C-alpha cells in the first residue's frame, strides 16, 4: 500500500466567470520511505498539488489517501491534528515567526502537540545537533543568515519526527552552498530516519537529489524519471526533460554551473 495515494485530483480556483484550473486530473502514488520530487514550470500547479497532499488545501474533485485513510473529507479539526502529529513542512520563504527565537521556532510543533518539557528538550537537542544550530538557539530570525533560517525551518519540520515531510521550493532563496547543505540534510533524514519526503522545485540541481521525479505541466503529469545511476547523470537527465517540456522551465538555473 502506498503512503500517499492521489487519485484523479482536480483543483479549480475562482468564480464562475474567471475559472483557473490549477490541477487537472492528477493521479500518483508515493511509497513509504521515498524521496520524490515534483518539477515543472512556474504556474504548473506544483504548489497546489503539494498543498492538497499536505491537507492544507482541499481538492475540487478526486481523492487523496494518506496511509490508507481518505483525507479528502475529514473535518478541519481532525486534519489539523493530523498535520500537527504526522506531517512536517518546509516553505520557500521559511515562514519563521519573527517574534520567536530560533529555539522557540523549532519546538513550536511539539508545544502545539502538547508534549512534556523533558520530551521537548530531548527532541530539540537531537534536532539541533543534527542540523548544527546549537550556537544560534537564542537568536531571533532577523539575526541569522538565510542558510541558517532554512535550516531552522528544516529543524522545525523534522522535530516531531514526521513520517511525511513536504518541502515547497526549499532551496529557492539559498545560495548554492547553503542549498547543497540543506539537501544533504534532507538526504540524511530520508536515509537514516526513513522519513518520506515530497519536494517541489523548479531547479534541476535540487531535483537531482531525489530518487524519482514527476514532471507537471499545465496541471497534469507530463512524465516521470527515476534515478538509477549517479546524481550527476540524473541531473543531466533532468535538464534534458526540462528542455523537452519547455515553457518557463529553468534549464539555465542558477546552480547549473555549480556541478
Amino acid at each position: 500500500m502506498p503512503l500517499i495515494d492521489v487519485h484523479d485530483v482536480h483543483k479549480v480556483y475562482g468564480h464562475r466567470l474567471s475559472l483557473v484550473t490549477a490541477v487537472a486530473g492528477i493521479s500518483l502514488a508515493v511509497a513509504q520511505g521515498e524521496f520524490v520530487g515534483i518539477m515543472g514550470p512556474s504556474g504548473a500547479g506544483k504548489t497546489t498539488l503539494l498543498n492538497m497532499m499536505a491537507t492544507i488545501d482541499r481538492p475540487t474533485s478526486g481523492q487523496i489517501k494518506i496511509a490508507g485513510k481518505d483525507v479528502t473529507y475529514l473535518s478541519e479539526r481532525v486534519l489539523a491534528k493530523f498535520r500537527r502529529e504526522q506531517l512536517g513542512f518546509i516553505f520557500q520563504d521559511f515562514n519563521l515567526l519573527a517574534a520567536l527565537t530560533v529555539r522557540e521556532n523549532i519546538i513550536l510543533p511539539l508545544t502545539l502537540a502538547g508534549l512534556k518539557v523533558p520530551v521537548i528538550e530531548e527532541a530539540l537537542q537531537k534536532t539541533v545537533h543534527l542540523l548544527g544550530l546549537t550556537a544560534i538557539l537564542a537568536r531571533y530570525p532577523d539575526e541569522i543568515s538565510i542558510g541558517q533560517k532554512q535550516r531552522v525551518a528544516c529543524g522545525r519540520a523534522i522535530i516531531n519526527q514526521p513520517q511525511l515531510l513536504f518541502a515547497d521550493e526549499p532551496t529557492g532563496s539559498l545560495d548554492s552552498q547553503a542549498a547543497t547543505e540543506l539537501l544533504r540534510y534532507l538526504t540524511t533524514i530520508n536515509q537514516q530516519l526513513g522519513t518520506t519526503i515530497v519536494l517541489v522545485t523548479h531547479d534541476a540541481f535540487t531535483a537531482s537529489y531525489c530518487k524519482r521525479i514527476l514532471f507537471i505541466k499545465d496541471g497534469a503529469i507530463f512524465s516521470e524519471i527515476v534515478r538509477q545511476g549517479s546524481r550527476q547523470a540524473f541531473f543531466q537527465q533532468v535538464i534534458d526533460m526540462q528542455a523537452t517540456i519547455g515553457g518557463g522551465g529553468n534549464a539555465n538555473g542558477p546552480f547549473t554551473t555549480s556541478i
Partner: protein
Amino acid sequence: MVLLRLAFKNARARFSHYLAYVLACALAITIFFSFNVMATTAKFLPAVAQQQRVRFALLTTSFFIVLFMAAFMLYANLFFMQQRHQEIGLFNLLGVTRWRIGLLFFLENLLLGLVSLVLGLLLGILLSKLLAMLLLRLLDITLATTLLFSWAAVGQTTSIFLVLVVILAVMDASLVYRHRLAELFRQKPPATSHISIWHYLGGGIGLLLLGYAYWSAQNYSSVVHHYLFFGSTAFMVLPLLILVAVLVGTYLFYQASLSLILQLLRRHKRFSYHGLRLVTLANLAQRLKRNGSISWLVTILTAITLTILGSMTILYAGTQSVLNDEQPVALTVEKQLSAPVKKALVQARIPIRTTQTARLKVVSARFKLRSALALNYGAYVGPISVIRLTDYHAMQQIQPDLPALTLTEQQSVLLIRQVSNAGQASHQGRLAIQLNTPQIKKLAVKQISHVFPYGSSNYVGETGLVVSDQTYQRLAADAQTQPLAFDFAHTAKSERVSKHLAKNYGQREWQFQPTTNKANFANLHFQQLMHPVTENNANYSLPLLNVRYPRVHDLRTLFGLDAYITGFVSLIFIMATGSIIMLKQLAEAAENRSQYALLAKLGLGRHAVRQAIYSQTVVTFLLPVGLGLVNAYFALHILNVWLNQLDLTFAYIIGLVYLVVYTGYCWLTANAYYKLVQQK
C-alpha cells in the same frame, strides 16, 4: 474624474477599517453639536437658573472637545499614513505623480471627514433633545423640551470640523508629496529585542516605584508620620511623591517591567511550553512594546478622569456635609424677625411640621485642641454660643441625629465644625475649656461633637458648648441670641418661599465686637451690635435668617452640571483612546496574517487561533484601563483620607463604565482581528 472615483473606492474599501475612527469622530461631533445647540437655543437656556454658568460650561467644554478631537484626528491620520507607506510607494513606482497621490489622499480624507460630519450631525439632531433632558434632569429642573435645533449650531459645527478635516487632509497630502521613495519602502525595525540589563534595572525600579506608591497610598495616615521631616508640608509632599512614583513607575512598567515579566514567563518552560503560549507571549511582548506610549497615556488619563470624577463627588458630598452642619433645618430665624417670616410661610400655605426655639448665651472662651494634621483647629480664643441640655434634647425632634448626652455641672460638650477638624483623631485626652465669666471659669470637655442643634450658622464663631441646665443658669452672658427653627418639607413652593425670604431678610445680621484687646483673655467680652447692619466691620457676625432648601438646590445644580460635563468628556476620551488601540491592533492583524496562516499549516485549529487572539486582545485593551483604575483607586484613597470618609459610588460606577466600554471595544477588535486573520 478618475481620481475622485479612486478615492471614493479606496475610502469605501477601507471603511470597515476606519469604522472605529469614523464613529469616534461622529460621537464627538454629536456631543459638540448638542452642547452648542443647548448653549445657543434661546428658548432652552433662559429656563435654566444660573444660565450664564451653564452656558459658559457648555461652551468651554465644547472648545476642549474640539482640541481633543484635533489631537485624536492628528494621531489617527499620522497612523494611517504610516500604514499606507507601501501603497504610496507603489503608486509612485507605477508612475503616478506625487501631486496626484497627494490629491488622492486629500480626497479620501475629505470623504471620511464628511461621512463623520454627516453622521455626527444627524445623530446630534436626533440626540440633542435626549442630552438636554438629561442635563435638565441633573440640574433638577422640570421643563418640557421640544426638539432642539438651530442653524447657527449646525453652521458652527460644520465649519469647525470642516476646517479641522481640511487642515489634516492638507497635512497628509503634503506629507505624501514630500516623502522620498526610499523612505516609503523603509522596513519597520524589528520589534523583537533581547532582554538587557536595562530591562532588569528599569523593570525592577518600575515595579518598586508602583509598589511603594500603592503601599504608601493605602497606609497614608500612618506612613505620613515618617515624612514629618518635611514639616507641616508633609501632607502635600507625600501625595506629590506618590504621584511622581506612579507616573514614572507606570512608564517604566510599560517600557521595561512588562517585557521583563513576559520574557521571564517565556523562559519558564513548564509554563510557556504549552500549546500556543510561546506565540501568545511573544506577540504580547511585541504588541505591548508598540503600544507602550499610548497605554501609558490611557492609564494616566483614565486615572486622572476617574480621580477628578471621584474627587468631584467627594467635594459634593463634602459640601453636602458642610450644609448639614451649617443648616440642618429648613429655616431658622432670630426671634424678633420671626413674625413676618411665619406670616409669609402661613400665607404661602406651607405646612409647618414643628417649631422649636432656644436661648443661646454668648460668652468668651478659650480652648486648645491637639492635632495630628496641619489642617487643625489649634487654639481658639473668641466668642462661643452656649446652649443648655434641655434645649439641646428638645431639638432632637427636628434633628433625630443629635446624639443624646448626659452632663454633670462640671462637664460640657464642645461643638465644632467637621471641616475645621478634618483628619484629626477625635480622641483628645483630657480637654478643658476656659470661659471668661465671673461665676464659671473652667469646664471639662466630656466630648467633642460635630452635630449642632439649629445648625452651626446659629452659633457665634461657629463654635458651641452644651452645658447642664444648672450651669447654664449660673452663666452670665455677654449677649444672647434666640433662634427659632421651622421644620417643613422640601417642595418647589417651599424652596421658592425660602428663597424669597432669604432675599428679603438674608442681609440682616447680629454683629459681635470684642470690647477689649483680644490678647488679654481676662478682659475679653463681646458686645452685640444693633441690627440690621449691612456693612461688615465686626469680627463676628450671625445672620438673622438662614434657609436650607435653596442651598440644597444650588448644590444639586452644581454637581449635576459637573457630572454631566465630566461624563461626556470622559465618554469622548474613552471612545477616542479605544479606537486608537483598536486601529493599532487591526493594522497589526494584517501584518500577522502570514503568522496565523503558518500556524494553521502547522496544524493549529481555528479554536486555538481564536483563543490566542482573544487573550492577546484582552490583555492589550484591559491592561491600561485596569492599571488606570488601580491608580485612581489609590489616588481617591488618599483624597478620602484627607476629606474624611465620603462617598465614592459615582467614581466606581464610572470606572465600571470604562471597563464595560473597553470590553466592548476589545470584543469588536478581537472579532475583526480574527476575521482579518482568517481571510484567505
